[in-house]
């Protein structure tokens, strides 16, 4: 339970009052992550919302297992699983209005899918047929971002631009615990607070940045505590409690939309799988820790709550599983088809208008392709050996 351990409480020595722009106390997060499920607060939670969260969690888990299976079949180059973190992914997608924007990191494919993106388009980057498989403006989902935390200033800039144009658009930007060490995290939070930009930063603290645990990542009492230094509220929430994450993010989104400025939300969760399929998690963490978190699984938590309140029976659970299975079957079927690639695309989207230099290179590739087609028509069936082997 290393990441859940109580840390020291931040006690600033107050500077002279005239230096204080705000009393930091209301900005500070609570010492314990906020929880809804299994507490009295659960009784006040919207039943319809809990049902939607449940269906999406089940779907999300199935999506994660299906995508992981696709890496084993060689259909995905890599997949950073969000198994165990589905509550954060789903809540992030569901709190946003259609006009809002989501800024996902590379691990947040599921948030994009829960927001309505076609699962196949969401996996384009990880399959390797293009970098972004969708028009970001169509879904209001920024490209999945592989460099760490660099999408955070984009979210700030977009939210700022929207406000300048008079649109009540909110940007929700997702980042991991490791990403909070990057300079862009700092610059984004600082800009957002100075500009009072309508942004919500969601840190999914899943315990590890690949193999490096949180206590080697930061000396802060919590990642949510970092907010106070920028002059924005920090909120700590149980990232496996879908109802709690949804509630905390909803509040932050509302505050941003009403001109109250940015919020930093730290969701404490756990990455059940390795960093990606290329990583060996047994080298840096023990089974006991993983098993302890398994008991705190987001689906288990919500299932227990819904069952106890008589909101979930075997039929509803089966319906959720069937829906998830249908999504997985469709994803599997479509991912097992070879993508249709045009090598000439390499030159199409570098500049609005191709430079002379790129036109020359495009002509070279076209000639190579034509020569290779001629070879095939001369001697072979036009497919290479690798394709036949499949």
């Amino acid at each position, binding site marked *: 339970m290393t990441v859940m351990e109580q840390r020291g409480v931040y006690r600033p020595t107050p500077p002279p009052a005239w230096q204080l722009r705000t009393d930091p106390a209301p900005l500070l997060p609570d010492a314990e992550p906020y929880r809804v499920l299994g507490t009295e607060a659960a009784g006040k939670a919207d039943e319809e919302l809990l049902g939607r969260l449940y269906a999406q969690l089940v779907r999300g888990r199935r999506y994660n297992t299906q995508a992981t299976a696709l890496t084993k079949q060689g259909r995905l180059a890599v997949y950073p699983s969000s198994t165990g973190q589905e509550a954060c992914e789903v809540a992030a997608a569901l709190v946003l209005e259609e006009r809002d924007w989501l800024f996902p990191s590379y691990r947040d494919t599921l948030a994009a899918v829960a927001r309505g993106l076609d699962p196949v388009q969401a996996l384009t980057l990880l399959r390797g047929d293009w970098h972004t498989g969708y028009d970001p403006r169509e879904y209001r989902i920024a490209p999945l971002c592989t460099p760490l935390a*660099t999408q955070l200033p984009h979210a700030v800039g977009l939210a700022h*631009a929207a406000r300048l144009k008079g649109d009540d658009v909110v940007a929700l930007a997702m980042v991991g615990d490791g990403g909070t060490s990057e*300079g862009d995290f700092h*610059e984004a939070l600082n800009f957002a607070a100075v500009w009072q930009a309508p942004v919500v930063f969601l840190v999914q603290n899943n315990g590890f940045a690949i193999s490096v645990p949180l206590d080697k990542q930061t000396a802060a009492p919590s990642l949510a505590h970092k907010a106070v230094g920028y002059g924005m509220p920090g909120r700590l929430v149980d990232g496996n409690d879908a109802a709690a994450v949804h509630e905390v993010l909803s509040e932050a989104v509302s505050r941003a939309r009403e001109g109250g400025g940015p919020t930093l939300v730290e969701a404490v969760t756990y990455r059940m799988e390795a960093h990606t399929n290329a990583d060996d998690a047994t080298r840096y963490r023990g089974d006991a820790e993983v098993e302890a978190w398994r008991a705190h699984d987001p689906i288990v938590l919500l299932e227990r709550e819904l069952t106890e309140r008589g909101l979930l029976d075997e039929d509803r659970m089966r319906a959720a599983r069937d829906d998830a299975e249908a999504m997985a079957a469709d994803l599997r079927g479509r991912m097992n088809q070879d993508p249709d690639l045009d090598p000439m695309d390499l030159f199409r989207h570098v500049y*609005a208008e191709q430079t002379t230099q790129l036109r020359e290179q495009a002509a070279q590739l076209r000639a190579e392709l034509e020569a290779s087609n001629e070879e095939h028509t001369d001697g072979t069936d036009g497919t290479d050996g690798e394709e036949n082997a499949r």
Partner: protein
Amino acid sequence: MSTVAAERATKKAAKPATMAQALGRALRDSLAEDPAVHVLGEDVGALGGVFRVTDGLTKEFGEDRCTDTPLAEAGILGTAVGMAMYGLRPVVEMQFDAFAYPAFEQLISHVARMRNRTRGAMPMPITVRVPYGGGIGGVEHHSDSSEAYYMATPGLHVVTPATVADAYGLLRASIASDDPVVFLEPKRLYWSKADWNPDAPQAVEPIGKAVVRRTGRSATLLTYGPSVPVCMEAAEAAVAEGWDLEVVDLRSLVPFDDETVAASVRRTGRAVVVHESGGFGGPGGEIAARVTERCFHHLEAPVLRVAGFDIPYPPPMLERHHLPGVDRILDAVARLQWEADN
């Protein structure tokens, strides 16, 4: 008004203007014409920029259009990316060449390739203004010539003006471009003056065209930005040696105007590339290779480079020894003759 009369009126109204003024006027006109244009950077507001290029813009257009940002280059460019995603056309100021380095990741990983990543769905019409180069007695980290880094990044345009008129025209064209442009401003030419009429309509030069500043027959000097006036001076001095030098101002490093350059070198048969950034791995190597590939059979001598030394930019009291001057250029031209004679 007839063309002649208009020309006379233009000439009459023309008065000495500095490059910094022309750049400021380009920003002003762009802000006035297109509400999507936003200027942002450190000190661009009340101060008007440390070189006064943005002087008066906040006063005229308000803080939302010309914005003093926190001091953070990655943040300035990173937020500009988000603004561009929402349909704005940000123009960011990097204050000094070496101060732009914290923003490299945003520039290279996002600005340069966002169009490509999204199959053209998300262009990045961002202009990044970078004052660059030495010759103003700046202390450490204030005089780098960083153009090679930008040139090596696909997806960026890289342009640099050498005249007052080009400063205006190229900046207008850069801001109007749907692609990101790294706009390199030669610091030591900020206060160079030319007769220029800020009230007359200015021709907006297209990006990607080099210009022959001086015609000649003996050899071509291929140069850009701060080295253009030095090459012009060298060409005048060369007359005494009996050499008639052509000077080509590249203006745009990406895209590169192979046509104009090759046509000039084919006419003269000899070429020297002149720039103040280091020679090793520098722009001159690329330019010399391109010229050789296109003009080999017309060349009477190898393409030579006159560049800054391959050293970290020197302290100001020594920079005159580092910067390519007239003598060093003429020495290279002399070597061209020698190569041809032997």
